[in-house]
């Protein structure tokens, strides 16, 4: 408990508070931007709503729907209505999915969080292991292989990795299902089915995030191995294993901690692509639908969610950094 007590809770709380205040104008600007861009887009919300029925609908009918959806209002009014509604807990109704926005997000966010969390944990663990192994003998065969692979993966877009994985694991070898949450013929999502279906997307998302962690850990641990404490530990005759894990890894992991926070935006965009490729019923599919059918309330809510995740990630990384390195103050 002494660690918990020794933490600088006061400065940390103040920083969190300052960031929360700063988030308000950012979120306002982002939501307004979403409404403005959607309004300027050539897609017509009413046409998207009516679908093929709109092609034979009377103009009067379409005008009535336009009015009912509230999209005949000017941009500012729509944004303000949405904002005041959202502040009182009413996120509005998604026109394209014919359901309240809160319900749409509630049904989907769990699947997205599951996918992202699995992938993230996997990326961090795998990244640390590979990074340490590579750093142990810099310039060795393993190091060159891992580093080379990491650079190659960093250049590969996640959707391409996804298609490759589907082709290889699902179609070529038939080991794992290629998409969806459950088999086509089965209706309910059992734990076993979901477990089988989550493997490929989580793996692809993890692999797409992996290079950063590998390279950071390798650099951090490698540098630490050349520092005085490590040299001291070695001279005391400690086992190489202890030196590596107890001394070098500990100090080498510090930059990685900050990386965890700043990778959140990358994780979100990666998840968008991976969810689309694997027909994963998360919020990504909803985002794409909301964007193409100019579904203002859904689009705004999802953007706020993504923005909040990014801001929280930044805060987390700054907090961790401040904790890990006393020279950095909590004054950001």
């Amino acid at each position: 408990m002494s660690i918990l007590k020794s933490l600088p809770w006061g400065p940390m709380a103040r920083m969190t508070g300052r960031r929360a205040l700063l988030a308000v104008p950012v979120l306002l600007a982002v939501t307004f931007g979403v409404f403005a861009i959607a309004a300027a887009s050539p897609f017509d919300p009413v046409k998207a709503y009516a679908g093929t029925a709109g092609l034979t609908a009377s103009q009067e009918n379409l005008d009535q729907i336009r009015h009912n959806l509230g999209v005949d209002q000017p941009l500012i009014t729509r944004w303000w209505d949405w904002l005041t509604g959202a502040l009182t807990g009413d996120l509005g109704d998604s026109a394209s999915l014919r359901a309240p926005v809160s319900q749409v997000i509630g049904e989907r966010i769990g699947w997205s969080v599951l996918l992202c969390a699995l992938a993230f944990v996997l990326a961090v663990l795998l990244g640390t292991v590979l990074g340490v192994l590579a750093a142990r003998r810099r310039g060795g065969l393993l190091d060159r292989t891992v580093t080379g692979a990491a650079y190659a993966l960093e250049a590969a877009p996640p959707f391409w990795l996804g298609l490759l994985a589907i082709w290889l694991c699902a179609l070529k070898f038939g080991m794992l299902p290629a998409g969806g949450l459950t088999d086509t013929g089965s209706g309910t999502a059992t734990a076993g089915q979901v477990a089988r279906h989550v493997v490929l997307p989580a793996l692809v998302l993890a692999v797409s995030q992996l290079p950063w962690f590998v390279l950071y850990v390798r650099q951090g641990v490698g540098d630490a191995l050349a520092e005085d404490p490590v040299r001291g530990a070695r001279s005391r005759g400690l086992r190489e294993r202890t030196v590596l894990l107890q001394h070098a890894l500990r100090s080498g992991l510090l930059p990685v901690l900050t990386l965890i926070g700043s990778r959140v935006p990358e994780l979100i965009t990666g998840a968008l692509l991976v969810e689309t490729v694997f027909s994963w019923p998360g919020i990504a599919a909803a985002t794409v639908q909301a964007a193409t059918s100019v579904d203002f309330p859904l689009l705004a809510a999802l953007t706020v969610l993504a923005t909040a995740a990014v801001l929280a990630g930044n805060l987390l990384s700054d907090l961790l950094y401040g904790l890990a390195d006393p020279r950095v103050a909590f004054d950001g």
Partner: protein
Amino acid sequence: MSARSIRGAAATALATTLALGAAACSTPSDGKGAAGAQDSAVVGIAYEPDSLSPLLGYGKDGNSKIFDGLLTHDARMRLKPALAEKLPEVSDDGRTYTYTLRKGVEFSDGKPFTADDVVFTYRTILDEKTNNASKAELDAIDSVEKKDDRTVVFHLKYPYAPFAERTVLPIAPQHVAGKQNVNNGSFTTHPVGTGPYVLTHWSKGEKLTFKANPHYWGGAPKVKKFTMAIIKDDDVRATRLRSGDLDGAILPPNLAATFKSAQDKKTYTAKTFDYRNVTLPTANPVTGAKAVRRALDLAVDREAMVKGILNGAGKPAYGPVPTDSPWFAKGTERAHDLKKAERILEDAGWKKGADGIRTKGKQRASFTLWYLSGDKLRQEHALAFASDAKKAGIEAKVESGTWEVIEPRMKHDAVLAGGGSPADPDFDQYLLLHSSLAGDGFNNMSRYRNDKIDRALVDARRTDDHDRRKAGYDTVQRELQKDPAYIFLTHIDHLYVVNDAWQVPGEQGLTTQVEPHDHGLASGPWWNVEDWQPKK
């Protein structure tokens, strides 16, 4: 080696080969596919409904699986009673329709179906707060009233002969749907109906799963579990059908042809009213000129389009009514006659210029033809049309765009359009041709006006005397021959490939109805999946 294992081996080999070409997302054949179990069926469709609420337009043309209408269509598109006990009684002035409801019908939640549900459904759809884009189809209704628990009376604003065809519209339960927001309540995704199937799960963008309703008033279906997988990509759908993941699928002609030699699969060709045509905006000095319209009508080679674009799966179209329909006016077929087309243009003063394009005075015979971008079928029709038109000295500049781009230009530019509704000739012809709807949304896109046609259309929709109606629609088709409002190109067959594991009573295999332009959940051989029986 059993037929099944040969099939399996062939399917695996084919799937692997195809996978190399179409490495898109699909589920693999992991042996758990539905093929084999005859009490469950999985079919692949390209379309997904936005909502499952009849109040928002779901299932308005019947076959909604989850719901029933007062009436329904049989395999030959004749009306027969469903939730009504018999066909409606129509008053002499054609403005009052009385339906007697079937006794003892229950919704899938066990609550009884009554006249209140019928009245609720129609009143809610017509309510202006309901976001239903098809409510104009019920325009004739003045009021709906419940006479007693088993009798519902519709009063119409004007005599409307095809009204009974509209009452295939599914009935929603008042005790569920009446208690929530009609536009986004949970009923839109968790429907409760009287139909042969109950929705068990809807994974948006992926699939809809149904289970048989054991208490269905028409008898419990033999296919106990029915899944509709939503697969937009044609190649992926074909691959998954091949791999055994699907039992049936809708396919374009070229992909359906690859299943011709499959012993265990049957291809079903559905006849349709699904036409492709070119609008001829009257406000454009070229397409508005009668000589140009008549010349184009003769210059297009419809037979070549059917052969070249549709692989033979279709028919030349001379109007909205397909040539094999009883409503078709015999003798209005037009042969491809380029010479006559050129003569008409010459006589009207359109003279060929140096570049092969005709001019009349200062007007060059040139106009823009739009098609919906990404729609390959429309693109090929548009290009074929343009090449035929060019031979007659008329230039159609083909461009593509989304409806957002096309709509503001529809007044002056031609559009490669599509449509078609088989239930009654009034349904598409009135919207397509009546001058009162000129330029109203996507109705009468040519902004065509022909007083004879206007009169014939109104006359034919107001009488229920079959001969008078037939005479009216014959007049329309003959007038269209003299002064085409659109250049109709083809009627397109819809092709379905299904495992040969089921049949409907009294048939060798499955059946299809005559299908409309929009073919959603309701179409295909599974229009009556509740009647499917395992084939021994």
